[in-house]
């Protein structure tokens, strides 16, 4: 059962990254859209993510629940040493979710209030994935120090380091990239589609650059990520697959294949997560001084893992088909 639970954890993280990421990305794209096109971008992204954003963000909750039920020590360690970035991420989620709902459901569409909602929305769309990335990066950065004696060492430098921040920026860029790709398919005219194509390309270049930065930062922080990733066949294959699909995506973007490139982009990001995930599997947190928190060594007692596994398994039969139907239904575009 532990494998079922671990698989669901990985699935929840990947799906949150893809769906939630694309969702945050819509805000990031809006942030970097010129004033005259902002309105149109907003409208397209509202139609695209309006019905599905709540569901997209449920993957985070599922991941958290799996963590604290199945791997409580791992969770409590993260909550203790990464308290501050988690707090900022929560504030980001709060600001973003409410601003999105408020701007669409405010009965009076006043220019001034809309402006406030939009501001909050775009900035929190940037901050949240940044800190999500920082948290993920910190988990494997070996900067969490269980024996730290000062506040700074224990609660600040655990996440405030080159590597974590590089991962954060990389996450932001990937989110923007995913959103741009998604929006290409949602655009209702060629002009907008072309705008999103340009955005996708720019975001892609930025993502590749930040990806490089992650490697550089990992060398500075003595994490030697390159060595890890290129040293094991699975991660290496995943990285190669991601690169190949990257090239394929560019060709398909240029050919205007709007829906297939979504699969391509999703595939790329999944491969990146797989490469990183496999690289330090089964360790979820890597701690200063070499001690690591392995999923197996720190799993909950067997009865709990069994019940959790069954719960997730049965739950997924309820969730996945209806979720699929939701996406499918709102893909048919007669929506006003």
């Amino acid at each position, binding site marked *: 059962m532990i494998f079922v639970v671990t698989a669901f954890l990985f699935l929840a993280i990947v799906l949150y990254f893809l769906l939630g990421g694309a969702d945050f990305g819509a805000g990031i794209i809006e942030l970097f859209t010129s004033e005259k096109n902002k309105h149109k971008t907003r409208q397209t992204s509202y139609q695209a993510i309006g019905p599905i954003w*709540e569901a997209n963000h449920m993957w985070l909750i599922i991941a958290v629940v799996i963590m604290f039920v199945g791997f409580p020590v791992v969770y409590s360690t993260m909550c203790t040493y990464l308290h501050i970035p988690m707090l900022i991420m929560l*504030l980001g989620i709060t600001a973003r979710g409410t601003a999105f709902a408020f701007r669409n459901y405010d*009965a009076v569409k006043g220019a001034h209030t809309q402006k406030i909602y939009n501001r909050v929305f775009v900035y929190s769309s940037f901050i949240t994935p940044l800190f999500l990335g920082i948290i993920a990066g910190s988990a494997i950065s070996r900067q969490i120090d269980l024996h730290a004696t000062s506040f700074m060492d224990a609660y600040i430098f655990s996440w405030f380091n080159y590597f974590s921040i590089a991962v954060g920026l990389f996450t932001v860029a990937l989110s923007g990239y995913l959103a741009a790709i998604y929006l290409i398919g949602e655009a209702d005219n060629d002009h907008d589609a072309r705008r999103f194509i340009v955005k996708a390309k720019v975001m892609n270049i930025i993502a590749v650059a930040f990806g490089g930065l992650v490697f550089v930062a990992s060398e500075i922080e003595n994490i030697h990520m390159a060595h890890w990733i290129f040293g094991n066949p699975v991660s290496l294959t995943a990285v190669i697959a991601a690169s190949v699909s990257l090239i394929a995506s560019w060709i398909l973007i240029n050919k205007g294949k709007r829906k297939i490139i979504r699969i391509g982009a999703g595939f790329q990001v999944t491969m990146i997560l797989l490469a990183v995930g496999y690289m330090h599997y089964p360790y979820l947190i890597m701690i200063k001084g070499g001690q690591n928190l392995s999923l197996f060594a720190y799993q909950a007692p067997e009865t709990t893992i069994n019940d959790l596994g069954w719960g997730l398994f049965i739950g997924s039969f309820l969730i996945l088909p209806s979720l699929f139907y939701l996406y499918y239904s709102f893909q048919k575009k007669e929506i006003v």
Partner: protein
Amino acid sequence: MNDFIAARSQMAISLGFHIIYSCIGMVMPVFMAVSHYKWIKTGEPVYKNVTQAWSKGVAIFFATGAVSGTILSFELGLLWPKFMEHAGPIFGMPFSLEGVAFFIEAIALGFFLYGWNKFNKWFHWFTGVLVGVSGIASGILVVSANSWMNSPSGFEYVNGQYINIDPIKAMFNGSWFSESLHMTIAAFSATGFAVAGIHALMIARKKNVLFHTKAFRIAIVFGAIAAILQPFSGDISAKNAAKRQPAKLAAMESYFHTQPYSPLTVGGFPDTAAKKNKYGLEIPGLLSFLVYDNFQQPVKALDQIPTNEQPPIAVTHIAFEIMIAIGSTMMLVGILYFIAVWKKRSWLTKNWFLKLFILSTPFGFIAVEAGWTVTEVGRQPWIIQGIMRTSEAVTPMPGIQYSFYLFTLVYLILSIAVIFLLSRQIKMVPELYDVKEPKLSHH
């Protein structure tokens, strides 16, 4: 403010905020489903208008509920890491199932809010019902997680180790039924009275009378029935507390000295130094009767509980008194409503009658907050009754007071924003939904 108090306060304010949205999230979909059903059946446009107006308001509440719930799921770990480390595997089952329920709720909500005129009308209606059903299911599940903290079961605690864990047994702990029942009824009475009160105000102001009357009726029927059932379910809760948490019951009653014919205290204020209740009315034997169904059997009082295992008495007692006072009032108002419907139809349009409901608007939610204060403060000093102290669970990170101030500010801003948006929605009712009411239309 020390870190421990700050952590408790942050938890309390987060939960106190979230509970309002979760009550609305559980109950409004039910109201909408009724109104929606009436529209499909009768074709009267006013029911469609009521459903749509409600669904716009509810979308705001849902988003706020969803983000505040997300904050909570993290806060459990951020503020109480030691608690989650041990409790997670034991009481996590309802949380995992709750995750499933939320997911279904979020999916159904997408269909419902964005699906007008896009789907078969019964399918669309059904998605609305599903939002309500999964909301109520998730409420019951999360309360059963909380009830485990009050009556821990499903594990053995030996030498500081938690062994033989059985998550299913933990979920169906001794308090899950009484707590979930009381909470679910409370959600209906609180939301029912609040919604009815707002629409009553609009009727009294003669604004869109038809629209607001239909809305009022739907809300108050649920609210009144729930308010009448509430004290009975409260009685079950009190009996359960007496059995599993005698310290909590004694603090609720501000009851210091164990005695036969144990009295029920009404009102007053506990004087903890003198160990007695001041200015209260004592009805001899009634507490014995409520707990044991006979007037004689002594109920355990605070004198039998070590001081370092007693909860804050004043807070628990006063919160309990507030809940009881409001519960009795709401029950009376509920009964009056049914008298009006069955015997005195003329009351229904009278101003004093409407005023009664306008006045009652916040009552249910005040009682909900008070009731949770009883449950949570009454459990102190334990985070897991009898097993782990709250002070042992708190995060080692210093400076929690700043995070408390920050979250207080966030909740304050959100509350103001929600009130602002809701009042705008109500103001826009004439413009958006007035078309079919010739008398009041301004065309």
